[in-house]
């Protein structure tokens, strides 16, 4: 099937993919862990760029914040704690995996030859359910961002599962590393006051702006790219920036560990709670059309937005709003908790070593 326009975007697509391959080979070959982590950060950013070229705006956003942001933070925390700088290379260990990778790769490429062409609009994947979402979203939900509509409403149960996965990771990291609460007991590290003036001033300006941006991304998720996950990560980043500049103790005084824990669980409760409210009002789980009881629904004007032919789905609108808030709470609290876990343990280790 001939594809109408390929040149500019396809060339960009090829260029970015080749860049990814180059970075991947560099990661395979390098023996320095720090270099591997920084290369992965660039890899995520390049993936985000490729995702934009492939029209996946929300995914690019998420990959940039989560891949280049959170993954890098967590990896750096890990090598700091594990005191790993270089890996030891054992050539004998590479033979079997190399053969395995070649064989599996060969099978995959052979199978991929039957896959539809890149950009084919008539492929089964792009014509069946995927296309139905594009046609039905305005009628069923009314939000312009189809990806958010699918994520939060059509496949809302999947997103609940995803939120639970994040919560499970919060619990997992907390089980392993604790909450870093002992870090608050350590004596504050002495930093000469004039060394970090620039950082402190700029951070004080930036942190509120970052938080504001997080809220913007959160609430405009159904109008443009964005949503709960991206917003949650950005919010957590603001808190992590505070910790990096002002010290972990100061941040833990502002955002206590217990608050982070409670908020993480609260987010999941909000999400599942929306579903249960829908059941109580007579619908199925997460059926937002039943979010408001008929009494409440009657109090809201139906076509407030000026389009006489379109009845605005207030249940869908508020349902998506509430569950995205649940996602925001869990994601931001989890990332903060993970950071506290890694960073808190760093301080304990340094203090313990200083004492010995």
């Amino acid at each position, binding site marked *: 099937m001939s594809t*109408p*326009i390929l040149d500019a975007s396809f060339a960009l*697509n*090829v260029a970015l993919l080749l860049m990814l*391959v180059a970075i*991947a*080979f560099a*990661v*395979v070959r390098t023996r320095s*862990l720090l270099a*591997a982590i920084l290369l992965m950060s660039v*890899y*995520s950013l390049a*993936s985000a760029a490729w995702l934009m070229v*492939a*029209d*996946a705006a929300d995914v690019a956003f*998420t990959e940039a914040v989560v*891949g280049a942001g959170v993954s890098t933070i*967590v*990896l750096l925390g*890990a090598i700091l*704690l594990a*005191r*790993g700088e270089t*890996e030891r290379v*054992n050539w004998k*260990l590479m033979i079997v*995996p190399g053969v395995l*990778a070649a064989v599996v*790769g060969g099978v*995959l490429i052979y199978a*991929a030859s039957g896959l*539809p062409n*890149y*950009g*084919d*609009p008539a*492929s089964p994947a*792009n014509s069946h*359910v*995927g296309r139905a*979402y*594009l046609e039905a979203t305005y009628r069923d939900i009314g939000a*312009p*961002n189809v*990806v958010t509509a*699918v994520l939060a409403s059509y496949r809302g149960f999947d*997103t609940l*599962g995803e939120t639970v996965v*994040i919560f*499970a*990771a919060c619990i*997992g*990291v907390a089980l*392993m590393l604790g909450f870093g609460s002992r870090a608050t007991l350590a004596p504050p590290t002495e930093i000469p006051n004039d060394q970090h003036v620039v950082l402190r001033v700029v951070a004080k300006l930036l942190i509120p702006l970052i938080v504001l941006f997080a809220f913007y991304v959160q609430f405009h998720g159904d109008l443009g790219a964005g949503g709960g*996950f991206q917003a949650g990560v950005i919010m957590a980043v603001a808190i992590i920036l505070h910790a990096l500049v002002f010290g972990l103790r100061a941040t833990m005084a502002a955002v206590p560990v217990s608050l982070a824990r409670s908020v993480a669980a609260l987010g999941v409760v909000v999400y599942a709670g929306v579903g249960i409210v829908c059941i109580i009002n007579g619908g199925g789980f997460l059926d937002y059309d039943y979010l408001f009881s008929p009494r409440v629904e009657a109090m809201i004007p139906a076509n407030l937005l000026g389009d006489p032919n379109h009845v605005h789905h207030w249940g869908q609108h508020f349902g998506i709003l509430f569950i995205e808030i649940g996602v925001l709470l869990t994601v931001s609290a989890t990332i903060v908790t*993970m950071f506290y876990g*890694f960073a808190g*343990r760093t301080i304990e280790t340094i203090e313990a070593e200083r004492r010995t």
Partner: protein
Amino acid sequence: MTWLASHFNYVVVVILMMAGLFIVFSSGNLIKRMIGLAMFQTSTGLFYITLSKVSGGTAAITLKADSETGRALAAPLDPAYVAQFGVDGVVYSNPLPHVLILTAIVVGVATLAVGLAIAVRVREAYGTVEADEIDALSRVAAEQAEPAP
């Protein structure tokens, strides 16, 4: 040659997947293995997004066909193509894989965090993050007599 052009993406994605898998199984260093795992997982995402791209399409955020952006998008395309594959005059890419990969990215970073937390504890318990040294220490421990609880 045209096969390579239209399936180039799949070939590259497979190479990236195999690079990640190779790192996971050939490296002895626990942290490097997690990095390889992350690479393997994100390249799976690239595979799904490749399936979802529609030529001449745009991100799945509804716009009006007679707006400036809508007209700019439709200009280089054949009107019959837009009529057949577009929705209300604009061609979009398939949004479903985007949703799936959003989920997969998040699952990936959750796994990464838990895995690294376990690796940190391994380092504290064994003093090393290299798999062969850990194996040696474990074997020594297993052969010693059981201590009283």
